[in-house]
């Protein structure tokens, strides 16, 4: 009767809602936690605009050349194109660049270019041939001996004109479509077995995209886990440090106590990230509306976590479920190991252990798609911890078959259930013992002791 009663009791969750509400309410009422929350949301909101503006500033700095020079602004460009390829002022496309306000004067030959002033530049485009090689096009920038214009500026100008001339040159021979094809270049493939080759041919998602998806997915989990671990551990240790756990245990079962606290901290971090994400998304969009620079656009794309929402609905749900399961797994683990800590100074090493595990998963999510080998992907999709990082993306990107993913998912769920049961068994032992730091091996030993 004793064991049956005990077994019934340790999994009881009555009161979990009250623990959850109290912990969450007090967390938001606590000035320290509230400040962290606001700071994180503000940082996330401003991160996009700051990155974009700094990228824009860097771009401008490059365009405007050597800032150390006393006076770098050119006032006039004499443009002399002696080739058969035509370049109009429109083709030069100075608009939107730092050369936008410079007067451009077209000359048919070098002889038409006057003696250069100290703020004037001459640009010559010529087709030249020496004795040994085929003719070569040249773009040359010339300034006066006393010019105040930096060489950096001239290089930037020549680079710009080179780009436009190159485009005009190729367009002379190719249509837009042919040019686009040409610009893509040629990629080399390694030697494949016949099966691999057929698999590759049938891949819906190319390797480059797989790497992107996997990276974004694992970064989301990494951020969630790394932010949550210390909060969960601190919260779980609160009962020990305040020495009131015994008062609680006559009102609520240990499992309900720890799970209520873990869930509250998960919600705290999740709401912080969701609000921060919404803020970042709004601020990035607003900045992008007023700034159409390609660099700014590129920064916006680099920070884009929404690529994962490009999948079909079912796949999105699978990814969200996997993120939730992984987040839950790491949070329960944090709570369990946190309750094994006896003092505040033991929090650091415990956080490090969990972050190390999370990092292992992250590394596998980065490297496995790079290798893009079916057998290795399957193995890592089945191993605990790496399965959470590799399995879901591998499945939605068609790298592992459905039944392997189902096994992987079942493994993840079983692992969480095992952690849950372990927590139920050992938390009540750990929480009333406030003098000793338990190692993982000791926790496992405790779980094997009879109830």
């Amino acid at each position, binding site marked *: 009767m004793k064991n049956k009663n005990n077994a019934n009791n340790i999994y009881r969750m009555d009161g979990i809602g009250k623990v959850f509400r109290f912990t969450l309410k007090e967390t938001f009422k606590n000035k320290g936690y509230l400040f962290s929350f606001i700071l994180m949301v503000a940082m996330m909101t401003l991160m996009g605009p700051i990155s974009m503006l700094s990228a824009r500033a860097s771009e401008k700095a490059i365009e405007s050349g050597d800032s150390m020079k006393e006076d770098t602004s050119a006032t006039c460009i004499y443009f002399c194109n002696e080739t058969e390829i035509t370049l109009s002022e429109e083709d030069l496309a100075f608009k939107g660049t730092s050369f936008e306000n410079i007067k451009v004067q077209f000359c048919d030959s070098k002889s038409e270019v006057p003696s250069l002033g100290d703020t004037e530049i001459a640009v010559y485009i010529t087709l030249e041939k020496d004795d040994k090689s085929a003719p070569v096009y040249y773009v040359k920038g010339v300034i006066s001996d006393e010019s105040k214009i930096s060489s950096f500026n001239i290089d930037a100008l020549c680079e710009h004109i080179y780009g436009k001339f190159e485009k005009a040159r190729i367009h002379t021979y190719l249509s837009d479509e042919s040019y686009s094809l040409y610009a893509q270049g040629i990629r080399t493939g390694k030697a494949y077995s016949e099966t691999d080759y057929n698999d590759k041919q049938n891949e819906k998602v190319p390797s480059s995209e797989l790497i992107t998806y996997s990276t974004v997915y694992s970064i989301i989990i990494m951020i969630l886990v790394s932010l949550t671990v210390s909060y969960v551990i601190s919260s779980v240790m609160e009962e020990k440090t305040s020495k009131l756990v*015994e008062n609680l245990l*006559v009102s609520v079962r240990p499992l309900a106590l720890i799970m209520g606290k873990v869930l509250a901290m998960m919600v705290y971090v999740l709401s912080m990230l969701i609000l921060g994400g919404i803020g970042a998304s709004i601020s990035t969009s607003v900045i992008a509306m007023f700034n159409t620079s390609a660099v700014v656009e590129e920064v916006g794309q680099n920070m884009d976590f929404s690529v994962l929402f490009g999948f079909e609905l079912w796949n999105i749900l699978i990814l969200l479920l996997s993120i939730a399961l992984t987040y839950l797994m790491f949070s329960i683990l944090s709570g369990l190991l946190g309750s094994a800590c006896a003092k505040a100074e033991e929090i650091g090493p415990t956080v490090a252990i969990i972050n190390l595990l999370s990092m292992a998963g992250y590394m596998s999510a980065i490297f496995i798609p790079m290798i893009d080998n079916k057998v290795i992907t399957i193995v890592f999709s089945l191993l605990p911890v790496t399965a959470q990082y590799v399995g879901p993306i591998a499945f939605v990107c068609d790298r592992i078959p459905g039944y392997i993913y189902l096994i992987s998912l079942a493994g993840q769920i079983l692992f969480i259930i095992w952690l849950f049961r372990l927590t139920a068994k050992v938390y009540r032992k750990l929480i009333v013992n406030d003098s000793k730091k338990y190692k993982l091996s000791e926790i496992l030993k405790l779980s094997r002791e009879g109830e």
Partner: protein
Amino acid sequence: MGLVVTDLSKKYGNKTVVDHISFEMNKPGVYALLGTNGAGKTTSIRMILDMLDKDSGTVTWNDKPLSFENCNIGYLAEERGLYQKYPLMDQIMYFGELRGVPKAELEKKIKYWSNRLKLDEYLYPQPTTDSKGRIIKNAKPKSPDQLSKGNQQKIQFLIAMLSDPELLVLDEPFSGLDPVNTDILKDVVREQIEAGKYIIMSSHQMAVVEEFCTDITILSRSKAIVKGNLNEIKKSYGRVKLALKCERDVSSYINDLGIEILSEKEYEYSLKVTGDAQANELLKNLINAGIGIIKFELAELSLHEIFVKEVGADEEQK
């Protein structure tokens, strides 16, 4: 019916910390768990309350395994503490809600117990007013770290009382309290006894325990060495304490009968007799000798004396 603890045992590694302890509380009252430091009192209480796994034994309340789901338990733990970061009132409400007390009722109970335990100034601080009664400073509730240990202990006691518990477990309830607060708590315990509550009390303060308890278990080195009704236990030791005060020195009469003198001060003696017969013989001899007797009081051993005697004897056997 009531509380039945049977054959409770606990080992940590090879060390037995509670060794087959059993007792019963068939009727309301105070049951005292006494013992030296490390004798196993707190471990026993934790096992009774199902916070620790038992190696053996059962604990039943009205014939069902005891748990807070089938018994309204109030508990004042030996380790005092409160959440230091959270407002006092929030934590009290939290504990009350966990015990299942409805919110409206909870607020009334907190008010009552706050007043009863003289905690109003911490839980319901009044604003500072000037001579005309105008508020010059709004009152801020005190945070737990601004409270003395004694007041934190009273807050914990308040929490234990919120659900109007039928079983109250008090582990060292009076330690660390000043005489005024000790009296406040004693009054509450008396009220609870009168209200028909079951109380388990663990304490080192024998005089206080003796004031309340009807039954005891004395633990020494994890075993119960004395157990039963306090009056019966006292009776079993007989009336062996004699307080005697005479008008002149009577040492020779005492020595003639081989009575042990425990203390002596100006014809006032504290004696240890073998029983009623020896005491009566001494009285007869003194009367026959015409010695004026001011005080002659034959009494049982106090709980303190029984504790020291039994635990001392057990320690000697070690």
